[in-house]
């Protein structure tokens, strides 16, 4: 099983491949409207933030090693999120969309192996996380089903991440890349009306975060999934 950046690379390859397939079958079942507005809930998977020992310089004459005072291991816990999207259909296959997301992920540091025998414990911090990004969505119309109402898609994009403490102090900002895919199901089609359609959407993505709140200077990958309701205008 792949994980982390390796998994992201595999998924990027899959997105490109599927987009080409989708493009070849474009315009078979165009949906009504050019504007798509959606809102829903998501789940952002956890990610390891790193390990760090609190240590002291040993009192030895040659090549002093470190005496571990205590050990820590930190993680971002998985967290629910809310998302809103605004998309513009630029062709029968492609949609450009922007997303705003909000989540309150918790950072958990497990503390163990204390030299003075303190019991293992955890320390936590809850952050407010805001994401604004832009994506290109390729609808795989050639793979649609249910009379064109069920359409898979692939998505990729990039955006900006901002994380704050409970006291609204900014503790991190950075970039976020995401790739993934999903399906949209058009439940109601009313092309003659201003509201031209209503449907539901499911997403599965890999998010690669660079900078932002971090204990090690490296990029992190986390899985995410979400479901939303969309309106077509």
């Amino acid at each position: 099983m792949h994980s982390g950046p390796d998994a992201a690379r595999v998924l990027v390859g899959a997105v490109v491949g599927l987009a080409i397939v989708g493009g070849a079958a474009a315009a078979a079942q165009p949906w009504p409207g050019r504007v798509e507005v959606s809102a829903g809930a998501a789940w952002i998977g956890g990610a390891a933030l790193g390990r760090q020992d609190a240590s002291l310089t040993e009192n030895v004459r040659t090549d002093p090693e470190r005496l571990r005072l205590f050990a820590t291991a930190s993680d971002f816990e998985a967290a629910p999120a809310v998302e809103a999207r605004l998309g513009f259909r630029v062709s029968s296959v492609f949609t450009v969309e922007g997303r705003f997301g909000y989540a309150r992920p918790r950072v958990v540091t497990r503390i163990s192996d204390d030299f003075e025998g303190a019991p293992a414990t955890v320390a936590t911090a809850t952050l407010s996380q805001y994401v604004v990004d832009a994506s290109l969505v390729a609808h795989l119309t050639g793979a649609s089903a249910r009379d064109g109402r069920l359409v898979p898609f692939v998505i990729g994009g990039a955006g900006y991440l901002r994380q704050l403490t409970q006291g609204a102090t900014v503790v991190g900002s950075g970039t976020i890349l995401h790739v993934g895919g999903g399906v949209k199901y058009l439940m109601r089609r009313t092309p003659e009306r201003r509201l031209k359609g209503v449907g539901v959407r499911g997403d599965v993505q890999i998010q690669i975060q660079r900078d932002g709140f971090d204990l090690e200077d490296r990029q992190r990958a986390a899985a995410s999934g979400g479901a939303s309701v969309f309106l077509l205008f």
Partner: protein
Amino acid sequence: MKCHGLLAALTLAAVVGGGGPIEAYLKLGVETGSGSVAVAWAPGPIRYFISDRGVPGVSAEAFRAAVGRAFDAWQAVPTASATFEEVGFTLAPPSNEDGMTTLGFEDRADLDARVLAVTSFLVEVTTGEIVEADIAFNAASAWSVAGDVSGFDVESIAVHEIGHLLGLGHSAIGETELLPGGRRHLLAAETVMFPLAFAPGTLAGRTLRADDIAGISDLYPTGGFRQQTGSIAGTIQRGGVTIVGAHVLAFQLESGRLVANFSLPGDGRYVIAGLEPGSYIVRVEPLDDADLNSFFDDVGPIDIDFQTAFADDIVIVTAGTTASADVQVMAK
């Protein structure tokens, strides 16, 4: 300030943390009519002399060079403004109140055999300004400048004593073990200001650590230091009672750096200043790795009857602000 090979004790009249909202480290201080004030030098180079005397294994010239490197270590801290200027050799011993800041070897029959060096001050008591500080290295101890096991490293002990000369008290970031007879052995430390010295042949005491740098930068800050760093403050309580003398350690998760202070007599609060912005784990332990009077002149209020504990929250420190972290501890 005495520093023993295995044990250290304060001899100065007062050790206080000051009363300002921003502070780090344990600072030396004096009582004035309006309360306690941290002692410190006036701005400008601190001019010092070297006693023209050597001991077996260390010539006066080798001593001068080692002490010069020790001063350089403190002067190199980019966030502190303390500077030094060597005047030259003098025939005067260190322990004279003669208006000259002097470092050198000296026979001191009044010192415990385990005392390696002692720093004495002449302080203007109304302002806390240090006007003279002498460091006497105990000529009865074995000394070395080559890092061998024949004696204690002059440069390491000089770095420690110069910390006192600048106004810093002892730090407690270290672990010791109790030996038969009540003496203590240093296992490890992450500050040059721990009261027990590293063993002969060990050079670890030559290098300033994050705790030392935070302390000297808080006492002699360069412009912008306090705006670029943050603090953690709070109280330590056991059953609703505030504990005085608790050793509070801030551990930065990003860098692994350790900076510490104590909850102090008075309001019982602790303040750890000079922290780089970042995420910190706060650990509290009783002050039981060295003699209490190595840190506090009045040990009466110092409470060591509690278990080591951690704050529940990861403390996020941002520049120019003070984060709060109160910790509840349990009795032993």
